[in-house]
C-alpha cells in the first residue's frame, strides 16, 4: 500500500486539495499550472482514483449541513466482528466504518435526511445485532479543514 508518488502525482494531490478551480475547464487550468497536458491530468487522476490513492476529487461538505450525522460505536465480540461489520456497512446511511483497537471496536459514521431516520437506523442495527450502539453526535467542530499536508 505504501507507494512512492511521482512529482506530478504529489503535486496533483497536495496542491489541489482546496483550490480546485471553479472555472469552465478546471483540469486544463491545473495542467497549465503544472506544465503538463489536460489529458495527462485526467489520466493521472483516473489512475490515482483506480488504485485507491485518492478517494475522490470533489466537494467536502461541512457536517450536518445536508442531513444529520453521528459517530457511533459498538463493542462487538471478536468472533462476531466480521458479520456485524458487514451488516453495518450494508446500510447506505453508513459512509465510514472502521475497526479500532478498544473494547468499543467498531466505529462508524451514519448520515440520514433527518434525526428520526438516523435514530431508526441506529436502533435497527442494535436490534439486528443484539449489541448496544453508542452515539457520539458532533457538538462543536474545532477544526477548519484545509486538506492534509502530504509532506509532513
Amino acid at each position, binding site marked *: 500500500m505504501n507507494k512512492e508518488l511521482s512529482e506530478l502525482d504529489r503535486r496533483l494531490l497536495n496542491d489541489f486539495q482546496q483550490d480546485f478551480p471553479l472555472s469552465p475547464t478546471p483540469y486544463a487550468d491545473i495542467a497549465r499550472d503544472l506544465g503538463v497536458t489536460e489529458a495527462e491530468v485526467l489520466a493521472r487522476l483516473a489512475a490515482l482514483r483506480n488504485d485507491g490513492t485518492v478517494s475522490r476529487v470533489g466537494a467536502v461538505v461541512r457536517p450536518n449541513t445536508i442531513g444529520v450525522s453521528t*459517530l457511533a460505536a459498538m463493542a462487538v465480540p471478536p468472533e462476531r466482528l466480521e458479520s456485524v461489520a458487514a451488516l453495518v456497512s450494508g446500510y447506505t446511511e453508513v459512509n465510514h466504518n472502521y*475497526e479500532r483497537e478498544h473494547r468499543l471496536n467498531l466505529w462508524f459514521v451514519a448520515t440520514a435526511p433527518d434525526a428520526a431516520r438516523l435514530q431508526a437506523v441506529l436502533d435497527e442495527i442494535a436490534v439486528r445485532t443484539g449489541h448496544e450502539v453508542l452515539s457520539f453526535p458532533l457538538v462543536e467542530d474545532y477544526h477548519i479543514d484545509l486538506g492534509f499536508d502530504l509532506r509532513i
Partner: protein
Amino acid sequence: MSNAAAIRREPADIAPLIDATDRRLIQATQEGLPRVPRPYHAIAEQLGLSAEDVMARLRRMLETGIIRRIGAVPNHYALGYQANGMSVWDVPEERLRELGRKIGELDFVSHCYHRPRHFPDWPYNLFAMVHGRDRAQVEAKVAQIAALLGAADHGHTVLYSTRILKKTGLRIGL
C-alpha cells in the same frame, strides 16, 4: 481565512442558506467531479441547470462554509500514513472550546470535535484525529496535544484503526 466565522456557525444557522437545488448539487458531486474537460457543464446538464449557475452555487457555498473545500481527498492509508489514531480526551467543559480550537489548529490533526461523554465507560468529550506513518509518529503527536492541554488533560487514550471497512462520500437517502 476569511470565511472562518461562517465555518464556525452552528448547523441550525446554516440550514436556511441552502435550497433544494444546492442539495441536489452536493449529492451529484459526492462521488467526485466527472473527469471530463468541462466537469461543471456535465453536472449542469445532469441537473438541468446552467454551468454558470453550478459554479456560482459552489462558489457561494464555499464562501459561506457549507462546502469546506473542493479538491482531492487523498486516502491516507494508500499514501503511507498507515497509523490512524483517534485520540480522545477528558477536558473540563468550561475550557473545551478554547483548548479544542488550539488542538484543531495543529497541522497534524485532521478532525477535532466536541462529542458527548457516555458515563461511566466513556469520560472523553474531545476527539482529535491524528495521522502518522507509524504508531511512534502518532504517539509523539499525541504527546504534543497532552503538553498543550497540560492540567486540563483529565485522562486520554488513543484508539488505533486496524481496518477501514467502508469509506465513501456522503450519501443521503432522499
